[in-house]
């Protein structure tokens, strides 16, 4: 039903613009606040336009150690977050694409049992298994290390399931043609299956990168060494800085910086992402 009435158009636009305003206002405030000195933010009225402290604030954040955040520069935290997010993303994709390949293309005993076991873990979020996982990581001596941050989050039932569904839509004749063309299992995987999964991998890359970037609870538990803090943890620490006034200009600056990598990933892979959702080129 498409109606073409003037007032309806005005109303729908008003609703949409309000929505956009509510969505963008906090981001705007964060941007503005990050360019003012601390004093400007603790007195009314709160400024709504950029201040002149932007350069100083950001250079202090990126390189200088902030006592409020444990003395670690935000640059270091972003590096940690980035390494963790990339590790989780690549790890998850590699593990799940291989698992799905095994489940779809190989006949081994208890194949379906394994599939359903993987599928069941979809229902268990990180938080549920966090204590046993912590125990395992401790005994493996991986506390306060990048491995400890990354490896426990690498297994992914969701991604395995998605790849399985995709592989099942690839026609059998393609597999058979490859067998006749003397492509062994590894060659088939590398030459045909992976290139065909390109758009799916891109879509998953975005989702998983953001998932990894936003991890909070697990890094909080597994790290006590400040040099391994992630940016999400850093923001949280700055807000709860005890007796002092919260350093809002730095907090907002960190929040803005924390938004940058996910935005870059989304913008860079957006085209492939949409292709992956829409296209079915087989």
């Amino acid at each position, binding site marked *: 039903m498409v109606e073409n009435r003037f007032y309806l158009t005005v109303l729908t636009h008003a609703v949409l613009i309000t929505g956009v305003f509510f969505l963008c206002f906090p981001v705007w405030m964060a941007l503005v606040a990050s360019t003012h000195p601390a004093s400007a933010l603790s007195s009314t009225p709160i400024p709504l336009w950029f201040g002149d402290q932007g350069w100083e604030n950001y250079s202090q954040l990126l390189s200088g150690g902030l006592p409020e955040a444990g003395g670690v520069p935000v640059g270091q935290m972003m590096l940690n977050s980035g390494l963790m997010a990339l590790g989780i993303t690549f790890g998850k994709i590699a593990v799940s694409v291989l698992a799905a390949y095994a489940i779809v293309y190989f006949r081994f005993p208890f194949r379906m049992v394994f599939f359903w076991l993987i599928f069941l873990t979809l229902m268990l979020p990180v938080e549920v298994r966090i204590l046993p996982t912590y125990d395992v990581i401790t005994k493996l001596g991986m506390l306060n290390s990048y491995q400890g941050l990354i490896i426990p989050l690498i297994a992914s039932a969701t991604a395995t399931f998605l790849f399985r569904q995709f592989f099942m839509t690839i026609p059998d004749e*393609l597999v*058979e*043609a490859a*067998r006749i*063309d*003397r492509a062994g299992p590894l060659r088939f995987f590398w030459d045909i299956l992976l290139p065909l999964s390109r758009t799916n991998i891109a879509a998953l890359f975005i989702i998983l990168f953001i998932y990894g970037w936003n991890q909070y609870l697990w890094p909080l538990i597994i790290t006590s060494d400040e040099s391994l803090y992630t940016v999400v943890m850093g923001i949280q620490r700055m807000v709860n800085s005890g007796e002092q006034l919260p350093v809002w200009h730095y907090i907002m600056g960190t929040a803005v910086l924390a938004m940058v990598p996910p935005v870059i990933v989304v913008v860079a892979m957006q085209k492939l992402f949409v292709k992956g959702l829409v296209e079915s080129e087989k």
Partner: protein
Amino acid sequence: MAQVEIRNLGKVYPGKVRAVSGASADIADGEFIVLVGPSGCGKSTILRMIAGLEEVSEGDLFIGGDRVNDLEPGERDIAMVFQNYALYPHMTVRRNMEYGLRNEGLPKDQIAARIAEAARTLRLEEYLDRKPRQLSGGQRQRVAMGRAIVREPKAFLFDEPLSNLDAKLRTQLRAELRALHVRLGATFIYVTHDQVEAMSLADRIIVMNAGQIEQIGAPLELYQKPATRFVAEFIGTPAMNFVEARPVTAGLKIDLPEGASLPGPCAMVDQLAAPAHIGFRPEDLVLEPQDGAAGLRLDLQVMFAEQLGADTVIHARLAGQSDPVTIRVESAQNPAPGATMTAYAPNAALHVFDAATGQRL
């Protein structure tokens, strides 16, 4: 290039589902052989067993004299063309054709030479750098053939390669396939459910039904001397007509459906000892009795006539049986529905099959 031999080939799927049993055939070097039959008759299963895509459950399979039952498809030195083309969608036409050769480890200059040759043969030169999705159905199927040709295999296997194409393109590619076979002189094994395709392409046809081979023979042989009622019905359009004949007293009196009669002697039918089906082709029926040759007389009522241009097919009813009789006559004929007519099948055009076994008598 090589001969292919199947010995008592059988296929049983898990769950005891039998797809093929006791299939034996010798396919000569350079022969164009077509496996034909209705869907589910096991023709594709045999092809897939030859390709190595299905395990052989029973019997032996030889390609070029070597038993290949347990070899991987890639080791059998065969090439296959699939119904839905099965081109690698992310590779260009050139890469598609190269892929098998690269996996074999052939030197680059030889690969390039073979692809240039195949592209010329199939008129694909200008499409070499396109992706399959930028090609039409007919072009895709030619690429699939190109991928087979460059392999220079011992045998080419085709699994209903023209079924996804429209009628006009199918006729055109059929002619190209035939020409290709002449040029390459290689062994072609071709599966189809379309008997016209089988008749027009094959050196010899293998007719299959319910997992078994009914008859192997040259197209005309199958048409003129079908070994079973199934083959008689399957080969030829419109299909062969049948009337039932029951001997009342063995060798003395034959009971035919009402409207059908044998005005003169007919050795084949007169000596029947058991119920039989008498078959005659629509194109063998004549509207005037021929001098001397007695044959089968049919008193018919016209249902309708199809004027096809070159000829007319009359569908008519025989009083004593429910199956209609079709008659192919010259195009000038156009009888009105309901009219009565008489048609004659000469003795020489009658095919008699045992009613119980379906075997030719």
